[in-house]
């Protein structure tokens, strides 16, 4: 049986205490909420904390709260299942709840949390196996080694951003609340990530993601399209989130965020300009999708060839925009 290495489990009474513990132990500690990402990685020796700080039990992190201005604040330890089950969230953020529904499998979504999914580790098929396997292949810079195996000339790790909910949240201009020993700060979800598969989060190690704040959807409608090998379980090979602000059949504004085509989600909304101020038609959609897919840089470190994933990026964007337009 694949087992966890030894560690101690701490169960703080509050977020503040959890942050305190993190700051005390530094890199030797990590937080766990659902554990669905962390525990397999610990079993494979990819992450080796001495102290695991449980936060999933903290009631303050388990609430979905209307913010009064039409928006919602979702606690980090709300499970993906709970988000999917919320009719209010479904109505306001179709793209986000769709993305949550497409994460892995039902049993995993019952444990997995929304904070955990935003922070889900980047993935790479030169990395996501056991210690023994990585030893056989040669370690990489993400753990125990010093080069990027898929792109040896790269100075940074090229593991793939694999959160489904992140692009959907970004497309709705969401923010996250981070709490650390020095207090709290609110940052756009987009700036939570950076172009480095190893240090993919900008959040400090002793900061805890406390909640996701979704602004009022107003006239925005959204969608998320996930490309993967199988209809369940799998991480995205490509993900595309689209949000449209419509005035009748005319597009007033459009945001497009793609994921799994590099180490961080990419906001490619610039490419949507030709759509603005007019109704959507197939020709313009194809032009926009082609342009929006250009920054995608899939490499040979995930399932199915990168040429195919590149092509599917365009398809996913096209579908996401179409589906957003169809959201009632």
């Amino acid at each position, binding site marked *: 049986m694949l087992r966890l290495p*030894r560690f101690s489990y701490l169960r703080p009474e509050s977020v503040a205490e959890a942050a305190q513990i993190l700051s005390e132990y530094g890199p030797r500690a990590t937080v766990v909420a659902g554990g669905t990402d962390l525990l397999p990685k610990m079993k494979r020796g990819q992450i080796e904390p001495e102290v695991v700080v449980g936060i999933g039990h903290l009631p303050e992190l388990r609430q979905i709260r209307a913010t009064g201005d039409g928006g919602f604040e979702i606690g980090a330890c709300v499970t993906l299942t709970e988000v999917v089950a919320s009719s209010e969230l479904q109505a306001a953020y179709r793209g986000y709840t769709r993305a949550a529904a497409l994460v892995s499998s039902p049993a995993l979504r019952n444990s997995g949390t929304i904070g955990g999914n935003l922070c889900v580790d980047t993935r790479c098929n030169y990395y996501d196996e056991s210690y023994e396997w990585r030893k056989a292949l040669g370690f990489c810079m993400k753990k125990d080694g010093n080069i990027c195996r898929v792109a040896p000339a790269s100075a940074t790790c090229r593991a793939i951003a694999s959160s489904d909910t992140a692009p959907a949240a970004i497309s709705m201009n969401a923010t996250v609340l981070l709490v650390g020993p020095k207090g709290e700060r609110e940052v756009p979800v987009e700036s939570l990530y950076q172009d480095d598969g190893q240090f993919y989060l900008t959040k400090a190690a002793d900061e805890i993601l406390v909640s996701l704040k979704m602004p009022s959807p107003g006239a925005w409608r959204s969608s998320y399209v996930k490309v993967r090998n199988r209809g369940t379980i799998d991480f995205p090979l490509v993900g595309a989130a689209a949000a449209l602000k419509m005035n009748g059949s005319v597009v007033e504004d459009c945001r497009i965020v793609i994921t799994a085509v590099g180490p961080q989600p990419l906001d490619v909304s610039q490419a949507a300009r030709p759509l603005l101020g007019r109704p959507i038609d197939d020709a313009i959609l194809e032009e926009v999708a082609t342009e929006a897919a250009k920054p995608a840089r899939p490499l040979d470190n995930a399932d199915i060839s990168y040429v195919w994933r590149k092509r599917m990026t365009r398809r996913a964007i096209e579908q996401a925009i179409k589906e957003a337009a169809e959201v009632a």
Partner: protein
Amino acid sequence: MSDIGSREILKISVNGQNKELLVKPYATLLEILREDLRLTGTKHGCEAGECGACVVLIDGTPQLSCLVLPGQIEGSEVTTIEGVSDGGKLHPVQQAFMDHGALQCGYCTPGMVLSSKALLDANPRASAEEIKEALAGNLCRCTGYVSIIEAVEAAGRAMA
């Protein structure tokens, strides 16, 4: 910390019985069930959340016991396959699996039965699509899934 991973007390209910256990904080619920409690009906196929064989119900919700720490389930009610039937009488889901040939080697069966039970407890009229959605994370290599869907539909009818 000199005593990393020293044992801790876990209070849970397993199949309706209250347990006070001395466990390793890094032993997953799967290990606690199989090795400490010798409830080996809970199976394991990957121990990494990829196959669904180890699904148990935690407070009625299917979860992968290979990815659950004792510290996460203090005070919870755990139901394993050993706790599904009522004395000598099979649960309608178990009976339907038997009648419809929804098991062959039987290794994925405990996880399938528990996922199905949780679905039907909430929605006995689940459609084939809803059944697929609910059982999506449970892999089976024998049946081709066809008979499992038939069985869960039949069990739903029996439970409705």
